[in-house]
């Protein structure tokens, strides 16, 4: 088994799982029917992508691991998602800002990952790009709409962007597994996506009459499995059924 490759896959897929879970929380709780359906549709796309990644990881691991044990039975420290995606849904401004920041990064990542020398990762990336382009269009549109909307919507979206900004730098940190995979032509060098990300995001913010936050200090840790306090609650929700009724099925 290629341990680095499995860790590399978790590094990508866990983001989609945890964000998918956060978006799933909005099912029946969105601010309007349309946004509710949209957020849960995005969640479904992300969970679909996660299944492809985890099925591949399970195959590489070769033991009795399955996509479900990877999703539901790991401990908190074993999840390698970035802190950004585990941040809670405080109001729609937070949810859509988190989405916008992640989508902007996700699309850049997939555009590179489709050139991976690993045929499975390349195929998943090519499939996912189509979906994520649509997510990006949706979330960017809402940033513009809220930024250029009322004073209230403008202030709230600015506050959310400013708060979540501290979690953006981590997206571009390399793990040891990343470095090995980059050297083998399988992985994407995320440090090279950083400039394009900030340029793209700032352009949308400017269009939306919003300010690009200037920060000196950024949060990090998720990629090493050191998560914020929100993660435990999220996992309790996510894992409840499998922990309580082991091996349960639909």
């Amino acid at each position, binding site marked *: 088994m290629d341990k680095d490759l499995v860790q590399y896959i978790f590094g990508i897929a866990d983001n989609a799982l945890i964000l998918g879970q956060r978006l799933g929380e909005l099912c029946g709780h969105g601010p309007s029917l349309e946004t509710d359906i949209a957020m849960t549709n*995005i969640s*479904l*796309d*992300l969970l*679909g992508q996660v299944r492809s990644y985890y099925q591949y990881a399970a195959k590489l691991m070769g033991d009795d691991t399955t996509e479900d044990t990877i999703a539901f039975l790991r401990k908190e420290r074993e999840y390698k998602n970035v802190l950004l995606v585990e941040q809670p849904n405080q109001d729609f401004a937070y949810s859509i800002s988190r989405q916008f920041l992640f989508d902007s990064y996700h699309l850049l990542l997939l555009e590179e990952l489709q050139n991976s020398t690993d045929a499975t990762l390349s195929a998943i990336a*090519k499939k996912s790009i189509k*979906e994520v382009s*649509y997510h990006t*269009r949706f979330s960017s549109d809402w940033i513009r709409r809220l930024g250029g909307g009322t004073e209230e919507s403008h202030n709230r979206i600015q506050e959310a962007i400013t708060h979540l900004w501290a979690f953006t730098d981590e997206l571009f940190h390399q793990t040891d597994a990343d470095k090995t995979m980059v050297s083998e032509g399988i992985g994407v060098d995320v440090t090279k996506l950083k400039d394009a990300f900030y340029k793209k995001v700032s352009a949308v913010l400017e269009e939306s009459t919003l300010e690009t936050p200037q920060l000196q200090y950024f949060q990090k840790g998720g990629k090493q499995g050191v998560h914020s306090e929100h993660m435990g609650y999220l996992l309790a929700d996510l894992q409840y059924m499998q922990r309580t009724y082991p091996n349960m099925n639909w």
Partner: protein
Amino acid sequence: MTEQLQHIDQELFEILETVSDPEIPVLSIMEMGVVRSAHIINGIVEIEITPTYSGCPAMDVIAEDIISAFKEKGYVAKVDLILSPAWTTDWITAKGRAALEKYGIASPLSADADKEALLGNKKIVKCPQCGSLNTKLVSQFGSTACKAFFQCEDCLEPFDYFKCLK
């Protein structure tokens, strides 16, 4: 483009045509373009299908329906899910598009037109009920991952538009 070719043994075609999309029952999986290959290898029917969207919950049902349709005809079938090449709405056949319209779902436009329609810039999506082009986008996401939600401003009927996926 060669990568878009399907490889399907003729005798299997008719059986595959009887399997419908569980979300859009008027459409067979052949019209939908999700079956990429079907061959009999060592007495077993081996079929490859590709998802429309990664998270499409219909795929598991489609795989089961294929297996039972072949079982009824005395075949043992095996279904594999493949991701590459990725599905595109171009693979929906002309017959499939007509079936969608008749069922009340507007079929996908070209990629450029689709973008204009989904940004609400141009009135180009035709109402499948009355044929009017005086329609408006209600939501970029509709009842399933593959659709957006529209409303006709003439006959006032809401309807789904099958998003273009390239």
